[in-house]
């Protein structure tokens, strides 16, 4: 398997008035053409890991790594221009809530075309055709109508499809999806995952799926990384999640209410100070 992404000892820290906050503390993994899940609670550093790879970390933050390499390019040494050329073109990112991450004053079609024309020399009408095809590929039934709609005129599921279309139009090799379905209804959630799944398989992309939903990730991804307080506490095959060894992973799995299980009160996470080490 080709390795697409190599991350070794990635650290992201934010200087604040009260001292340095270390959001990511030495994360290492590599990614091929596969679906990798990163799971953790809020504040575990999962999103900051994704953002560091994408190059979207706020300026005041400090990023260090022994290695942060995307298909042979050293991302830490790359210039701002080089990073920008990668971003949206070879590495793309889907964010959580289409309500906030689509431009509210631009039609969906124009946004997709803008992305495409930033990265490719392509005529206006050809770009429009490509955008319409892409909208159809994410299973929007009436692409022509949706093309001319504004983000506030579509539902959450539709908006998320539009965002996926926008992110995939330049044909990225690596897709980072940061909680792509958390704002959606369960049934819509599965539709979106099915679309992502097919696109990943058909195009041979690498996918990093960041989520707090352990159940969803374990059914969707090949491999799962569990993060706690900026560190990886466990890495396992998604199919072997039930055999998780770390008490944190077990606790996360255990504390969800399950249909048919009569557990009152629910078991809660008993956070151990040594997990932080």
């Amino acid at each position, binding site marked *: 398997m080709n390795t697409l992404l190599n991350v070794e000892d990635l650290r992201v820290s934010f200087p604040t008035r009260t001292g340095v906050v270390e959001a990511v503390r030495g994360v290492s993994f590599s990614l091929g053409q596969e679906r990798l899940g990163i799971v953790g*609670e*809020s504040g575990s550093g999962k999103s900051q890991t994704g953002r560091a790879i994408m190059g979207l970390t706020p300026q005041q933050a400090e990023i260090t790594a022994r290695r942060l390499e995307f298909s042979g390019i050293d991302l830490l040494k790359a210039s701002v221009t080089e990073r920008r050329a990668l971003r949206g073109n070879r590495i793309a990112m889907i964010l959580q809530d289409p309500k906030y991450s689509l431009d509210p004053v631009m039609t969906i079609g124009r946004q997709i075309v803008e992305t495409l024309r930033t990265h490719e020399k392509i005529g206006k009408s050809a770009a429009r055709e490509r955008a319409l095809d892409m909208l159809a590929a994410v299973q929007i039934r009436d692409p022509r109508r949706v093309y001319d709609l504004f983000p506030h005129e579509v539902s*959450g599921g539709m908006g998320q499809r539009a965002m996926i279309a926008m992110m995939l139009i330049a044909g990225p090799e690596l897709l980072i999806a940061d909680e792509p379905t958390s704002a959606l*209804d*369960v*049934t*819509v*959630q*599965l539709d979106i*995952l*099915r679309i992502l*799944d097919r696109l990943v398989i058909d195009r041979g992309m690498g996918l990093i799926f960041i989520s*707090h*939903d*352990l*159940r*969803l990730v*374990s*059914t*969707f991804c090949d491999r799962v990384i569990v993060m706690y307080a900026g560190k990886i506490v466990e890495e396992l095959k998604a199919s072997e999640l039930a055999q998780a060894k770390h008490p944190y992973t077990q*606790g*996360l799995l255990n*504390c*969800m*209410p*399950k*249909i*048919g299980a009569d*557990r*009152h*009160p*629910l*078991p*809660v*996470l008993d956070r151990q100070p040594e997990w932080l080490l």
Partner: protein
Amino acid sequence: MTPALSIDKLRVVYDDFVALKDVSVTVAQGESFGLVGESGSGKSTLLRAVAGIAPVSSGTIDVSGKRLGKLRDKEFYRQVQMVFQDPYGSLHPRQTVDRLLLEPLDIHGFGDTEKRIQRALDEVGLGSGFRFRYSHQLSGGQRQRVAIARALILEPSILLLDEPTSALDASVQAEVLNLLEQVRRDRKLTFVMVSHDLGVITHMCERLMVMQGGQEVERLQAGDLATRNVAQDYTRNLLVASEGFVRDA
């Protein structure tokens, strides 16, 4: 015994959009009743109509045998309290926790405020160290605890819970659900709880109603979901979806 809440053919209309189509529900005293459905199903609208923050166009709502009119008296607002989904949006950003908890007490003329505030914070598992903090200094779970404390401080008999844990991490969700069960037991409260998560609803509620498009789809006992004793395809789909992603072979 008079039911805690009795809703008959309730209809809510926003301009031309009918958000709730003649839904009837009766909730007994001390019961925990769940409403499940996807966005737009009308589940939150039903709660908001009871709370008096949705435009009711026809139908009736009775709380403890008393018919509610358009204008509700003070006693109603003491007796029925609501906890909202987003703990970041439901607390005043420029008021300390102390101030937040004092306001309802002031409005309803409760004495003994000092003790009550302290007791309310203790009850939701926040020590007095949290009392003079602002909401931005709290985590999501802590904020939701403050919201629950604010609801409980007036000693209500009915709690309306609109997705109280869906903005929280799974581990924090477990803590908040346990807290809610605890206070319900201690104070013999009636719950009406809205959630899109079937697992949460079956955990918290004895009976539930599945909703879609502003209408009732079916009514179930919590046990029915575990044994798959459901009549409607819509419910079955929700059940399948709640199990996670299945790759087509």
